[in-house]
């Protein structure tokens, strides 16, 4: 992206038709803000949509997005695979996330001194693991302990052939920053930033791990993931409440299943299951590579073709066809924990592709976006019954979601007090809708946000890859922002009235253990 292209247009703030009195007061007091013309986000192609992204689709289906920019000679890479929590089945939950970890374990030639010897030991330990699961089911504690010890011994033996973390070390030595990955409900996303002169290294390494991954150190890494779950869920009041809430809200759809996986599933996942999952979902036809930074696009395209082009397309991922039935009646779940209380409420709403998605997105700002938002003002500023209130729409994008509220009460206020205040505000919004002033404020923030989101190379690469992976169009993320500008106060009132009903909500509370 070049300076000249980005400076063609200055964004204008939207002026409310009925300007806020207090803002006028501020102007009178000497803060001479210019109220601009109506927002252009309603009518013009946004800055984001006009980014000079080169799109290349390789013959094997890999979509490559190249966005050269000025600035320091660094390059941000994001490789996104269209697989996540929703593609899992009961019994093997957490497999997408475990696979994310395993992809850092090296290949047939990276991270090993003798892959054949390693593989021979894999067979032995995997057979022992199969027997271990049978012994556990039979309740044979003694045999289970023997087999666990045997697996540990075999993995230690295999480790004598392993050069641990070599994949990471090669990138580290190259000066890489931010090497990491994340798994969501719909995607597994790998990212790293490299000095521009070492950009080719990314392609060589990525081609190797997409072609020849070896799932070494499997059982110890599975233990690492179990510890990650203990950290994020088992010992975290908000993490545990999040999980309990989604499980209550979704009875059928996999959005109700934790991406990190259930503990008992993590303890039984096998190397063979992970390998099969990899074969199903990690083909180039299910992947998007986004590259943003200071590089030559011709050179980058040639690297993509040379290194990633020969990788076989892979299998067509199975579709996700589970449909969450309509909720008929409020659901409530209570989690007892030795901690101060928390509240989480979710209302079922449509997917990110639905016509109401824009209004629901804007509603998060109207309700909790900043200190002037409705719920913040009511609960944090005026009534002082909460320290914080957040809203979001999730836990994914492609399937019907929840409009979620997370609230932290201030003692002695209870979660009951919070619910009362929330439902009063919801009822008010459902009957009267927000004011033009509120809408104007939020849209001004959307307009400025549309610029701020372009600041970071890595941030842009993440947005481009995600939009292309989820919606088959990197521009969709910018278009969805532009659609926010078309939302009216009546749209907002209507979606609140339609979705924010008692029977459509699931309420989760975290409370101290009840006395017997």
């Amino acid at each position: 992206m070049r300076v000249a292209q980005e400076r063609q247009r200055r964004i204008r703030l939207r002026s409310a038709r009925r300007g806020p009195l207090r803002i006028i007061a501020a102007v009178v007091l000497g803060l001479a803000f210019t109220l601009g013309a109506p927002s252009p986000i309603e009518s013009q192609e946004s800055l984001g949509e006009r980014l000079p992204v080169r799109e290349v689709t390789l013959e094997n289906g890999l979509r490559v997005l190249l966005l050269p920019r000025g600035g320091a000679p660094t390059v941000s890479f994001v490789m996104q695979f269209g697989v996540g929590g929703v593609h899992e089945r009961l019994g093997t939950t957490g497999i997408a996330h475990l696979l994310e970890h395993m992809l850092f374990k090296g290949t047939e030639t990276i991270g090993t001194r003798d892959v054949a010897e390693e593989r021979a030991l894999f067979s032995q330990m995997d057979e022992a693991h199969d027997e271990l699961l049978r012994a556990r089911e039979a309740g044979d504690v003694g045999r289970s302990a023997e087999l666990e010890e045997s697996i540990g011994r075999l993995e230690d033996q295999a480790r004598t052939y392993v050069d641990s973390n070599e994949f990471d070390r090669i990138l580290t030595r190259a000066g890489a920053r931010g090497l990491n990955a994340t798994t969501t409900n719909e995607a597994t996303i790998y990212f790293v930033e490299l000095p521009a002169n070492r950009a080719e290294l990314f392609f060589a390494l990525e081609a190797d791990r997409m072609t020849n991954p070896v799932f070494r150190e499997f059982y110890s890494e599975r233990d690492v993931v179990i510890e990650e779950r203990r950290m994020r869920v088992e010992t975290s009041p908000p993490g545990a409440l999040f999980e309990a809430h989604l499980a209550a809200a979704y009875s059928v759809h996999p959005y109700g299943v934790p991406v990190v996986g259930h503990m008992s599933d993590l303890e039984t996942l096998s190397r063979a299951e992970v390998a099969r999952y990899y074969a199903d979902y990690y083909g180039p036809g299910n992947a998007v590579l986004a590259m943003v930074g200071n590089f030559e696009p011709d050179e980058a395209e040639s690297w993509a073709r040379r290194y990633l082009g020969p990788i076989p397309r892979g299998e067509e991922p199975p579709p996700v066809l589970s449909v969450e039935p309509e909720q008929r009646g409020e659901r409530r779940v209570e989690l007892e924990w030795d901690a101060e209380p928390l509240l989480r409420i979710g209302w079922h709403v449509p997917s990110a592709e639905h016509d109401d998605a824009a209004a629901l997105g804007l509603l998060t700002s109207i309700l909790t976006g900043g200190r002037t938002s409705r719920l913040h003002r009511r609960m944090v500023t005026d009534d002082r019954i909460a320290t914080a209130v957040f809203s979001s729409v999730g836990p994914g994008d492609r399937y019907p979601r929840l409009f979620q509220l997370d609230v932290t009460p201030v003692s002695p206020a209870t979660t009951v007090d919070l619910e009362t205040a929330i439902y009063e505000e919801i009822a008010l919004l459902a009957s009267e809708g927000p004011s033009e002033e509120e809408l104007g404020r939020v849209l001004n923030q959307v307009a400025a946000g549309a610029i701020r989101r372009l600041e970071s190379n890595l941030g842009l690469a993440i947005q481009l890859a995600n939009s292309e992976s989820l919606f088959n169009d990197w521009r969709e993320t910018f278009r969805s922002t532009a659609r926010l500008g078309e939302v009216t106060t009546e749209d907002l009132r209507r979606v609140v009235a339609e979705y924010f009903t008692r029977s459509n909500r699931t309420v989760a509370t975290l409370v101290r253990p009840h006395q017997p």
Partner: protein
Amino acid sequence: MRPATGATLLLVLPFALLASSPALVSAQAVTGRTVIEALEFEPLVFEQPSADRHEVDGIEILLLEDHTLPLVSVYAYFRGGYGLFAREDYAVAMGLPSMLRYGGTTRLEAEVVDETLEYFAIQASFGSAGSSITSTINSLAEHLGSALDLWGDMLTSPRFDEAEIDAWKGQQLESVLRRTDDPARLAFSEFNRLMYGDHPIGWEFESEDFAPDRVTRERFLDVHSRIVCRENLVLGVTGDVSWSEAEPLMRALTDRLAPCATTLPEAPIPDVRRGGGVFVIDRELEQAVIVMAHATDVRLSDDAAFYSATIGNSILGAGGFSSRILARVRTEEGYAYSASSVWTMPRRHEGILGAITRTRPESAIPAIEVILESMAEMKEAPPTEEELSTTVDQIVNGFVFNFGTASQIVSRSMFYLAQDLPDDWLERYLRGVQSVTPASIQRAFLENLNPDEMTILIVGDVDRIGREALAAFGPVSELEVR
């Protein structure tokens, strides 16, 4: 970000990774070690942007233009934080940034400030550290003048609205109540208290800090007048603005600042705990949080001891997957998701050397043993040349990432200026880490690592961890949580 208008330095980093002769590669099999090892990299040549230095009425202002997007950020760094005040002023000194943001101004009620900021999509942040208070404002370039006018009001003419003070107090008291809900937060706060005692690093909010006579509008005004004043300030500007546009705005801002009435004292020197021992906070949890450290005295300075300790710490456990502690605790044993070493090297007083991890109760003792073994090995033998070169290569080859954004460059320069570090500290650091040898790292650990003095704090299920077995690491005491 385009090249800056400030002075530039042509920097060549001629370190080729895995350089070897080029190989002919088949179009069918462009993968694997042979291909990766055959890669050659050109030296990275780039213009190293730096901020222009200006001065307005004796106040230093750093500017780095960046016309990529129509946004401007202005940064204020005030020398003076809660660490320079007595415990009686702890709550007010800590709360000052919050009250500058939320407490209104003499001209505008708090609510009007909120509405104005949000209506014009201005981002204003305020933060505090032990010896500084910082604030940043980010605005669309076309509203810069008005945004700075408001920000100047917030910084220099705070209202400290009584109702807002009261609301803030209520939120902090709630936070005190919730401190024990998160085992990591509980562990870190108790560990700091153990190691640093009644020193600002060891302080944690307690309900007494919010006693009616300690948190008053008058106290806020007093602390404000001692921190937010001319001599304490360094300013920075980045974004879509030139100096000719920025100068009058900066002048208008600095004109509103009063001279500092008093000079703040130096931060007190902590008396870091000696003697070691094991402290437990017994909680029925599925995972134990383990924090351990002892006092050391390597200071942040341009000398071999500092660079050797820094690189040594990275090899020991602060360097991610390339470091020993994470490789052993996580990769080899599967005990933990996270594990790292910690070696703090302040400029003016002692620091601590230790490690942090969290693991299931049954693995707590083996994990502590592995960490202590990894530490002891740093004394017994120098690290390998490969370990050293991996760590140094990352810093040298990744040096360009220090210049990723204008904000990064200006914030760093402001910090150097405010902390009296030399302008070329980053270049000195780059040279310094390259002078480290395996022998100098071993020496750093021989001189500074004392496992017998290790204070170990564990928040977790002591019965499952093994109360008797913990005694192997030192006398075990139950820690009373306040």
